[in-house]
């Protein structure tokens, strides 16, 4: 058990190292000259060459990678060409909004995924309707879900707000997580407002993963229903809901968990698109503005941070799987 987790951690370190190598190589292949774009086009070539040597862009590649890693370990991601601020502090100020959105989407994905899986696994009616609708739902582009949500629930029905995280700019934001800040500040109106703003983006972001999780759970539940211990439990007269909860779900949940890990990782990538649709002030919006203004340090910084989160989420889910399923431990 411990050995398994140790092996998992070792591979985690390997993957993170690979991520740094990829990010480093991408930086190396940048066609634009970082020195030139930072000091301006009108700087003379001699000064540019001098600066280049000063920063060490002429050094051997391994040396540059070592230096890159040194800076990375210190949390230095470079300076944004657009905001002229350190990328790290930019990301730091936008990250809470993204995490809040991703967490809400994860709740949507797991809750709806569970419902789809459990309801869909029941024999009889609705099974093929379930299948067709999940084929269709899996094909909905994230931005289409967002746009239709905005048009229907904001524009036509006026039920929900669209865009931004809250109606008013809150003065005190100790954590940056609006839901937590408003609770800490004893501001029930602000909390409700923040929650309302969160609903549509979270659903737009979470619905695709919910379908994927639901289908996995449904398939593995169906397989479990044909096991003998389920028949035994039913023959003993155990209620159907108890059969599902105590006997089937526990044995069937593992593939769905693996799926959830993958999907929650993908939620981070999808968040970028959703943030653009809803003008959600997170690192996704920062990233897309960075793309529009060729701000490579910002783009690469955000990709790196999201990549780390993706890898960590998957590692965490793998560990949870080990904890709940003894069959995986041997």
């Amino acid at each position, binding site marked *: 058990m411990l050995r398994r987790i140790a092996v998992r951690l070792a591979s985690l370190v390997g993957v993170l190292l690979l991520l740094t190598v990829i990010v480093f190589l991408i930086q190396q292949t940048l066609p634009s000259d970082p020195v030139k774009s930072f000091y301006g086009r009108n700087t003379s070539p001699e000064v540019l060459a001098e600066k280049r040597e000063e920063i060490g862009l002429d050094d051997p590649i391994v040396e540059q990678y070592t230096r890159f890693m040194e800076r990375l370990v210190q949390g230095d991601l470079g300076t944004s060409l657009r905001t002229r601020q350190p990328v790290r502090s930019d990301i730091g100020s936008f990250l809470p909004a993204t995490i809040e959105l991703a967490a809400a989407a994860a709740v949507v994905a797991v809750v709806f995924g569970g419902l789809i899986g459990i309801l*869909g696994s029941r024999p009889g009616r609705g099974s093929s309707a379930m299948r067709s609708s999940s*084929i269709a739902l899996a094909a909905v*582009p994230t931005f289409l879900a967002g746009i*239709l949500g905005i048009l229907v629930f904001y524009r036509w029905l006026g039920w929900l707000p669209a865009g931004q995280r809250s109606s008013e700019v809150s003065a005190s934001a100790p954590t940056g997580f609006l839901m937590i800040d408003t609770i800490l500040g004893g501001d029930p109106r602000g909390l409700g407002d923040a929650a309302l703003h969160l609903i549509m983006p979270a659903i737009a972001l979470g619905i695709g993963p919910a379908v994927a999780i639901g*289908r996995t759970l449904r398939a593995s539940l169906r397989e479990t229903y*044909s096991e003998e211990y389920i028949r035994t439990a039913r023959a003993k007269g155990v209620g159907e809901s108890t059969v599902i909860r105590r006997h089937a779900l526990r044995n069937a949940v593992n593939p769905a968990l693996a*799926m959830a890990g993958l999907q929650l990782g993908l939620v*981070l990538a999808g968040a970028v698109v959703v943030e*653009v649709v809803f003008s959600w002030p997170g690192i996704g919006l920062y990233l897309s503005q960075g793309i529009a203004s060729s701000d490579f340090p910002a*783009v690469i910084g955000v990709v790196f941070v999201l990549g780390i989160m993706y890898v960590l989420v998957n590692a965490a889910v793998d560990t949870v799987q080990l904890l709940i399923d003894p069959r995986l431990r041997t």
Partner: protein
Amino acid sequence: MNPPDMQVAVEPEAGLGGELPTAGSLQAARHVADGEGMAEDAARRRRRFGLGRRAGGRRRSGRSGRVAVWLLVGITLVLLLLPAVLQLSESDIASTPFEEPLSEQLLGTDSQGRDVVARMLIGMRTSWFAALGVISVGVAVGGAIGLVAGFSGGIVDTLLMRLTDAALALPGPLVALAVVAALGPSLRNTLIAVALTWWPWYARIVRSQVRSLMHRPHVEAARVGGLSRPRIAFVHVVPGTLSAVLVAASLDVGSVILVLAGLSFLGLGSPAPAAELGAMTAQGLTYLFNAPWVAVAPAAGLFVLAVLANIAGDAATDALER
């Protein structure tokens, strides 16, 4: 591909069911199954139910195979012929800007007075062929890596599969995004970037197929017969891996279409005035409340294309698996 090869292309663990016929003993065997077997099982499931759209086992039918082929051919032909026959153009000014749908143009015009339907169809054509291109490259690269790994075994196998696992553990779309941002936004660079991240699953599938095929009598016979290694690989092993790879690839078309559109939406596709569904939607967002059709039409076109691809993939799975 002939029928015997398809029979051969069954998952390795399928043998378990053959030896142990009753449900009870099957379950017992599952508990005994070693950790690696479980991990492979989980990986297979991730594959099948994650990017894949298939749920539950259904019996194989000749009809769904035909459905899949007709759908794929039909989409390709329609997208190839329609813009050409109707002489659609992505940059022609058709009318005044923001013409409402059903007035003169079927779906109205955009901010520059261009026909939304024309641009949507051209964008769908771009998406479709781009996705097919990415998948072909992915299958070729992944297939080659999987074949080499499975065929050589030993240290080469270990190294290649470690690399594959590491690549799988990274978020593909994000890495692709960074690569495009570095290479410079364009459709070609987007295709390269996504193709670079879309091979690991194929490598895994091909490798596991090759490993199990290597011990089949027909391959051993070929080896005893003294055939050359390339001949054994390409004539006796590769055909047996095809159906599994085709299933995986056909299930991926819809996902690739969506990933490419997402990158284009973020401004990483071709520069304007090229008609790309993602970029068109992003441009339409500005006028969402005054002219919603400009943003909704391309996004809906994308949805239709992805649904058709998913149905085709589902049907192909039905026909080729089991």
